């Protein structure tokens, strides 16, 4: 696994703007960075990332079953009790999941280690599925990259295929994101486009526009009942919102399905370690009040159960702690995970975002930071497989 320099394509910003990918720089700080790329061998991708991702996903599905059956875990996960039967029903029905992103530590040699699973509202989808794909195609066309270079990225094809097989028949699929979040809007517009390419009827709306009827059904701005809703908005916020309690009336099929709440919570990491102790792709992890935390010998990472983008994450190690500066999360509690330091590639620390779509590992997006905690200022870097 190597990090190599490459010239930026002269028109990439124009291309990004044309595509609506206009958040490639955040307050002047670059987010999309194509002055470099990572290069993997096929074996590293297939054996080092793809196979472990697939296995981790299967373990997660087993964890859903385990968690749903245990009220003490549901309580630990801070999932409100009124939603427990609702979640169990979505699992029994096997409501289909669309996507998720595993964050892995991988250095090309040692077994990949799971940091966390972004199972509800994973970001950087468009960059991974489309923009880095185009980066590769353009650079192959100009021979800036060696002929034969490939990329672990069939996310786009998998998304369209997933929508084809969602069993929606002729039902309309609504797509909702927060009105003011342009990055979320791009993600949702892109997914809606994939759904349309799969032949589905779709309607876009904002989360704030959703209405409610007397019989606890939800409506769009045309007062059409929403039968199926893709939402880019966290489950725990939905349940806490005014309309949240009416979701348990179960009148609307959701993507991601309700059972995903058991996986989008970092308590999952403690459960996985409990179920599969010593697994090569797992890091030891415990709920904060577990006495086994002491066994981590002061080398650990403390994460809020329901945190986002690296906020409220504290790293503890001999010789000094490093926190990324606090944040608004942590009311629901914390887990503690053994510390596995990110590998350094010339002072850059990459996290592998490994995407699963409809149950298949199908691509990666890499984000790197100058520090050991990957927050929301990390940069997205493209990658290739092989290529001479």
């Amino acid at each position, binding site marked *: 696994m190597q990090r190599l320099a490459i010239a930026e394509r002269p028109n990439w910003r124009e291309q990004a703007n044309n*595509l609506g990918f206009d958040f490639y720089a955040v307050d002047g700080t670059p987010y999309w960075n194509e002055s470099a790329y990572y290069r993997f061998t096929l074996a590293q991708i297939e054996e080092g990332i793809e196979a472990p991702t697939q296995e981790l996903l299967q373990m997660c599905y087993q964890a859903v079953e385990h968690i749903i059956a245990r009220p003490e875990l549901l309580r630990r996960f801070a999932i409100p009790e009124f939603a427990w039967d609702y979640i169990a029903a979505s699992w029994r029905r096997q409501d289909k999941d669309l996507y998720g992103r595993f964050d892995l530590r991988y250095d090309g040699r040692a077994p990949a280690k799971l940091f966390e699973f972004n199972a509800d509202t994973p970001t950087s989808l468009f960059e991974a599925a489309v923009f880095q794909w185009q980066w590769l195609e353009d650079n192959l066309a100009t021979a800036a990259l060696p002929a034969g270079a490939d990329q672990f990225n069939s996310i786009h094809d998998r998304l369209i295929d997933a929508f084809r097989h969602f069993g929606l028949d*002729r039902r*309309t699929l609504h797509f909702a994101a927060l009105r003011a979040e342009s990055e979320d809007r791009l993600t949702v517009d892109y997914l809606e486009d994939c759904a349309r390419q799969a032949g589905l009827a779709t309607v876009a709306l904002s989360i704030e526009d959703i*209405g409610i*009827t007397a019989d606890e059904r939800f409506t769009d701005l045309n007062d059409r009942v929403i039968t199926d809703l893709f939402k880019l908005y966290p489950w725990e916020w939905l349940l806490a*919102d005014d309309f949240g309690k009416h979701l348990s009336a179960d009148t609307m099929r959701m993507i991601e399905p309700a059972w995903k709440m058991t996986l989008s919570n970092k308590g999952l990491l403690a459960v996985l370690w409990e179920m599969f102790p010593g697994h090569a792709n797992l890091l030891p992890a415990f709920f904060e009040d577990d006495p086994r935390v002491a066994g981590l010998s002061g080398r650990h990472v403390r994460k809020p159960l329901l945190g986002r983008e690296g906020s409220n994450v504290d790293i503890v190690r001999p010789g000094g702690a490093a926190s990324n500066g606090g944040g608004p999360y942590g009311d629901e509690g914390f887990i503690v995970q053994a510390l596995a330091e990110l590998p350094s590639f010339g002072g850059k620390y990459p996290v592998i975002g490994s995407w699963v779509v409809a149950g298949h590992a199908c691509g990666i997006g890499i984000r790197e930071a100058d520090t050991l905690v990957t927050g929301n200022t990390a940069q997205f870097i493209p990658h290739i497989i092989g290529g001479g």
Partner: protein
Amino acid sequence: MGDRKRSHNILVGLVGVGAVALIAYDYVGPSTSDEINSNLFTSADQCAASGQYDRQQCTMAYDAAVESNEQSAPRYTSQADCEAEFSTSSCHVLPAAVPLAGAAVFVPAMAGFVIGSGVGAALATPVYQTCPRNPGTQDCYASSGSGYYTGSGAHVYRTGSGSSATVSRSAFSAPGSASSPTLSRGGFGARAATVSARS
């Protein structure tokens, strides 16, 4: 080309965003089995001139589309939201709509209508033409023959250079086929202002 680990071709036609010419795409339209051969016309005159329907069928279809247009048109709570997807000259206030929390309702103008072959003019449906363009400009990228959607969001694909179109059967479902009076809105999204939804 061997066992590629990446997507073969990507066509991105994001509604509201400029359609980008990525490398040559071989996308050939929807592959669902319930497609109906149809015709898309921008006016009753154009319909009659095509020779595929008689004047009376065309007029009936056009009138039916106009009648359902108010119910069908996608609705927005701001002019800007509407114009993000449709042209600036198309978006207008829907006068008869009940304002949502004091805000007017904006809709795009009907751009034409679709008649499904064999199902009769009674199932004609209005279509709206999106206007992908560079932010800050008025001119739409798309050629005049593309970017048509029904009110329910089904993409109507033009085939060939004439009026033939392919549309799924669901496009003809009545827009209010399952509508229900809304008691209130805005019960989701309260945490939007404070923290990011992303992970």
